[in-house]
């Protein structure tokens, strides 16, 4: 199907199912129960899941396949956001031209940065991309204020021209972003018993784009081009001796991942039409690195999982406060309850970053392949256990484990 073998087709189908059924899957608890705070099925959060999923999928094409660790990818996200908002200001509130422009501009930008940065490799490459991203961030804050509106961030106003659309709605408001009239913020809420599910137009647009993006990355992973990228990672020197120049391949990977980042930025702006410089800061670049590593660099589905995981827990953890903790542990004796709440307090609410940092260190140390490797290890454990009951395989004649792609 679609030029995929059976295994890949299954993965694609799983991703499609997850993306399309997300409003159901993310709202497993009735909306008035105590567990409702673990629901993540509201439009804003679901949109962020898939948008950052796209960002991480793109980053993975560069980092997962070629091993070049870029610390400046947020710059492309920011550039994408800015160009999308400009499109809303000047052309119309239709999101498609905005997204197209953000991909193109981010692509051009990444040609420039990639061409220079890829002249070096290893840590020098990381520093160069970091330097470029910090430069863009600083410029967006200071000199480029006419384009970026500095600290306030670029916003829509009532007197923007919007040549093809309308400047203001009949009621005097700024028009909403839409696809040929279908407003991004329009949501259909379905109530089934105690549950309520939100179906948001913006989310479905993002989800469909993410599925396309995922399919593209799947094809890249399985293509001869993807194979070349892996060759760059495993042994660049040997590639050189074979008479192949790795530069065009790495540059292409860099540009593709930059365009993915631009797409994510354009979508972010389409869902909420404003763009700020803080999207380009190096901590934002660090976040996408975290997502990719946490999910599993070099694996297909890892980055999507990582993005979802981080965004979900970021949202849930920061909502938990001391009252909630007291509620949970109210069955414990008084002293123990207070101690437990006191111990957990630093890790929840505003302390979410602490949890993230610890989690990240644990993953890098013990599970370099990320969540995907964790899943594989678990399933191997179960499979071995079930096999142990009938026949024990001869350890001497077992094929050696092949090294993981992420290594």
């Amino acid at each position, binding site marked *: 199907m679609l030029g995929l073998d059976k295994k890949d087709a299954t993965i694609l189908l799983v991703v499609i199912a997850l993306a399309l059924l997300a409003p159901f899957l993310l709202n497993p608890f009735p909306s008035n129960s105590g567990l409702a705070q673990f629901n993540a099925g509201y439009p804003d959060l679901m949109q962020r899941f898939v948008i950052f999923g796209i960002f991480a999928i793109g980053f993975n094409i560069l980092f997962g396949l070629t091993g070049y660790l870029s610390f400046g990818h947020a710059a492309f996200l920011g550039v994408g956001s800015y160009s999308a908002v400009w499109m809303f200001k000047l052309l119309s509130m239709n999101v498609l031209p905005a997204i197209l422009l953000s991909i193109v501009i981010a692509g051009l930008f990444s040609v420039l940065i990639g061409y220079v940065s890829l002249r070096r490799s290893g*840590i020098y490459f990381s520093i*160069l991309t970091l330097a470029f991203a910090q*430069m863009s961030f600083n410029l967006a804050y*200071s000199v480029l204020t006419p384009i970026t509106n500095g600290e306030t961030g670029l916003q829509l106003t009532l007197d923007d021209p919007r040549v093809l659309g309308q400047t203001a709605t009949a009621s005097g408001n700024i028009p909403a972003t839409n696809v040929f009239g279908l407003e991004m913020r329009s949501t259909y809420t379905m109530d089934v018993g105690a549950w309520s599910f939100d179906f948001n137009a913006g989310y479905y647009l993002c989800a469909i784009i993410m599925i396309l993006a995922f399919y593209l990355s799947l094809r890249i992973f399985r293509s001869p081009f993807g194979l070349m990228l892996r060759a760059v990672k495993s042994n*660049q020197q040997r590639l050189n001796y074979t008479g192949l120049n790795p530069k065009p391949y790495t540059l292409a990977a860099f540009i593709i991942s930059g365009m993915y980042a631009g797409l994510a930025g354009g979508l972010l702006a389409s869902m909420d039409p404003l763009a700020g410089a803080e999207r380009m800061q190096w901590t934002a670049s660090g976040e996408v690195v975290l997502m990719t590593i946490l999910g599993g660099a070099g694996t297909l589905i890892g980055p999507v999982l990582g993005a979802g995981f981080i965004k979900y827990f970021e949202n849930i953890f920061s909502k938990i406060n001391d009252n909630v903790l007291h509620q949970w542990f109210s069955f414990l004796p008084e002293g123990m309850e207070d101690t437990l709440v006191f111990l957990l307090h*630093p890790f929840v609410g505003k302390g979410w970053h*602490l949890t993230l*940092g610890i989690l990240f*260190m644990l993953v890098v*140390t013990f599970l370099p392949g990320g969540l995907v490797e964790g899943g594989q290890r678990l399933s191997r454990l179960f499979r071995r256990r079930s096999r142990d009951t009938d026949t024990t395989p001869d350890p001497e004649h077992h094929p050696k484990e092949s090294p993981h792609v992420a290594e």
Partner: protein
Amino acid sequence: MDAIILQILNGLDKGSAYALIALGLTLIFGTLGVVNFAHGALFMLGAFCAVTLNRLLTLSFETIDETKTDFLGNPMKVKTPYVEAWFGPETGAAIIDWAVPLSILFAIPIMIAIGFAMERGLIKHFYKRPHADQILVTFGLAIVLQELIKLFFGANPIPTPAPDIFRGSFDFGVLLGFDPNVIIYPYWRMVYFLFAMVIIGGVFAFLQFTTFGMVVRAGMADRETVGLLGIDIDKRFTFMFGLAAAVAGLAGVMYAPINSPNYHMGMDFLVLSFVVVVVGGMGSLPGAVLAGFLLGILESFASMTWVKDIVPGIDQIIIYLVAIIILLTRPRGLMGRKGVMED
């Protein structure tokens, strides 16, 4: 002319901070081969050592002073720091006043201990892993340290004053024959620069003139051979990590009066210090120091008004711009050694 001298002076203190952090980074990189993204966090921890000591010294107890009354006519409560009660009011006040310099003594053992714990507990396991993993795990550690500080000290900057006699500025221009008040330079920044020079000199002297330093230098050049000679080089490298942590910590302690410490000051410095290390040449100690001062001074030149009029925004990007140009024209940095980090 006076403007140029002023900018050089202004660049010196920031340059000293860059140089000290970059020196530590290079020490760690040269000895252990680890890219330490948590080094900025160590700088920040140093600054918070000063904050902590300041708070400890001003711990006070309340007494009721019968001689004074507040506006309601009740006896007033007076706070007396314990230090003043123990050492007498004058000595006590002096000790509190000198909290920041005193923190140096307080910070050295703490920072060395933190360095040891970091190396033995975490980084030891990452020698054989790729550089990307080292970057990532230390990046995670930096987040954790930063958040812990935020948890204990809050998110706002904490003003930490320098001793009274260092307040005010020194009229530097008079020495060179300029009019008074043309070139003035705060005393504490001067102290910072001199302090940085002493530390840098100390580290270089330690490496150059002691047997321990000689072994460490030999280990940097060829680790295996030194190991074959029956020297436990790992132990010495662990010590060097502690030393590098202490250097970063001291840089932070003394920087506290210049910029009130906050939890993310380390990250701000880290990015720039990495750029400094790369410009100076990965693994070259003199290169790191030279590039630190050079970039600090360049940055302050770029923030002059007439420069900004010619190239708007140059002050924001000059360091990165220089780094990009140097990396592309001199791939090994200003004083990089051959064979270090060339893949």
